[in-house]
C-alpha cells in the first residue's frame, strides 16, 4: 500500500501553482487535504506523475460573509467550518453537513474545496452545495471564472473545471428570512460514506413553499438534485400530502446501485423516508421552531 512515484512541488502562491498546472497539464494532480487523494494513491487507483501541494499557498483559507453571500476559501479545513459560529447560526444545512463528513481527525486535514473538486457523489458537500445554489470560483491562467453549481458536476469524479484551473472559492447565497435547511445522512458507522443522505434548503411565504432545492448523496453516479421532489412543493402548500409526494418523487428519480450498504429497493425507500424527515425539519427551522 505504497503510492506510486511522483514529482512533488509545493508552491507558495496561487500564480505559481497555476504555472505548474499549465506546464504539466493532466499529468498533475492538486494535493489539498489529501484525505481522498492519498488513499486513492495508496490503492493505485490514482497514479499522478506530479503532485502540486497547495497547502502552503497563502490566502485560500477563509470564511467570510460579504454582499449577500458566504465566501469560503477552497483550502478551508472541514474542522474550521465545524467551529464557525457564523455557519452554525446562519447556515444550518452546511453546519449539519460538516459534522457528518468522515471523522474528527480526517476533518482536521480535509478541505472544503477538495471535497467538491473530487466530485464524488458519495461525498457530502456536493448535495449540500446543489441545495444552496452555490457558485464555484475557478482560477485559471486568465483569471477567475464563476461556475454555477448546477453546471459543476459532469460525471463520476468529473467536474467542469478545465485542466489548468484551480478551485479557489465557493459562494453560498445568504438565505433570505423565513428560510431553513438541514442535512440528514444515514451511515453505518462514523467515517463511512452515506447509505443515502439528503440536503434540503427551503424558504417559506406564509404556509406556502416559495423556494426549495433538494440534493441527494450517494444514490446516483453524479451528485444530483431531486427536481421532481422540489416541484412537489414549490409554490404549493406545505401540507402533509405534498411533503409525502416530495419523498415519493425523490425515491423515484434517484438512481442508486446495490452494494454492501444495501439493495436498490432499500436505498430508494430510505431516500423517501429521509427526504420527508428533512423537509419537516427544514420547515421547523424556517419557522424558528427548531435550532440547528
Amino acid at each position, binding site marked *: *500500500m*505504497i*503510492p*506510486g*512515484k*511522483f*514529482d*512533488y512541488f*509545493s508552491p507558495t502562491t496561487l500564480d505559481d501553482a497555476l504555472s505548474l498546472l499549465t506546464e504539466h497539464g493532466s499529468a498533475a494532480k492538486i*494535493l489539498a487535504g*489529501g*484525505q481522498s487523494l*492519498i*488513499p486513492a*494513491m*495508496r490503492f493505485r487507483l490514482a497514479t499522478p506523475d506530479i*503532485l502540486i*501541494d497547495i*497547502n502552503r499557498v497563502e490566502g485560500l483559507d477563509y470564511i467570510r460573509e460579504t454582499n449577500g453571500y458566504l465566501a469560503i476559501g477552497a483550502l478551508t479545513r472541514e*474542522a474550521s467550518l465545524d467551529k464557525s459560529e457564523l455557519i452554525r447560526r446562519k447556515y444550518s444545512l452546511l453546519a449539519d453537513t460538516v459534522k457528518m463528513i*468522515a*471523522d*474528527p*481527525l*480526517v476533518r*482536521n*486535514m480535509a478541505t472544503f474545496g477538495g471535497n467538491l473538486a473530487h466530485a464524488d457523489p458519495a461525498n457530502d458537500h456536493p448535495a449540500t452545495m446543489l441545495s444552496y445554489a452555490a457558485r464555484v470560483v475557478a482560477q485559471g491562467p486568465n483569471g477567475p471564472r464563476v461556475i454555477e453549481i448546477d453546471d459543476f458536476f459532469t460525471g463520476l469524479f468529473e467536474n467542469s473545471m478545465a485542466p489548468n484551473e484551480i478551485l479557489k472559492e465557493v459562494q453560498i447565497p445568504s438565505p433570505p428570512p423565513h428560510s431553513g435547511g438541514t442535512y440528514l445522512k444515514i451511515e453505518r458507522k*462514523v*467515517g463511512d460514506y452515506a447509505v443515502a443522505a439528503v440536503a434540503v434548503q427551503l424558504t417559506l411565504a406564509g404556509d406556502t413553499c416559495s423556494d426549495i432545492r433538494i440534493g441527494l448523496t450517494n444514490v446516483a453516479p453524479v451528485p444530483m438534485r431531486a427536481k421532481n421532489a422540489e416541484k412537489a412543493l414549490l409554490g404549493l402548500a406545505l401540507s402533509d400530502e405534498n411533503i409525502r409526494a416530495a419523498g415519493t418523487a425523490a425515491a423515484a428519480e434517484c438512481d442508486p446501485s446495490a452494494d454492501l450498504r444495501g439493495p436498490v429497493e432499500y436505498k430508494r425507500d430510505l431516500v423517501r423516508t429521509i427526504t420527508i424527515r428533512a423537509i419537516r425539519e427544514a420547515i421547523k427551522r424556517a419557522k424558528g421552531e427548531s435550532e440547528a
Partner: protein
Amino acid sequence: MNHTVSLTINGQPASREVEARLLLVHFIREELNLTGTHIGCDTSSCGACTVLLDGQAVKSCTVFAVQATGKQVETVEGMAANGLHPLQEGFWEKHGLQCGYCTPGMLMTAKAFLAENPQPTDDDIRWAISGNLCRCTGYVKIVEAIQHAAAKMREDQTASDSAGKTQNEEKVPS
C-alpha cells in the same frame, strides 16, 4: 527525486532525505525509529497512527512526510517527558486498554481534544474519539480514562493558578 524533510519531533529537530511518496507514519517509524505510532488499517479509517501536527490530531498514514516540513510533530513518545502524562495515568488507572494497539492513537487524539475542551461530557469524548477504533474495550473504559485525565489536568491547572496568585500577592509591598 528526493526531498529534504526537516521537522521538529517531540521538541527535537530532525532532518532526512526521503522520497516524496513516503508517508508520515513510515517516516516516524522507519526513519526516526519511533515505533509507538502504530499502523492499523492503512486507509485512514482506524486512527492507530494518529499524531499531532502543529497541535492538530491527524492520521499520519494519510499525510506525506514532505507535507510536515517545518512543522511540529508530536507522538506518544513525547507524552511522558516528566513522568506519566495524566492521560497515560488515566488509561492505567481506569484500564483504558486491553491489547493496547489503538492506545497511542487514542492518547494523541485525547490530548488535542482536552486542550480544546478541558471539561468534556462523556458524549463530547465519544464524539472526539469517533475516528479512533478500539476492538477490545467497548470504549467505556477509554471514556472513563479520558475523564480521569481531564479531572487531573483541571486540578493541576487550579493548583498552578493559585500558586501563581500567591506568588503575585507576595510581590505586593506591604
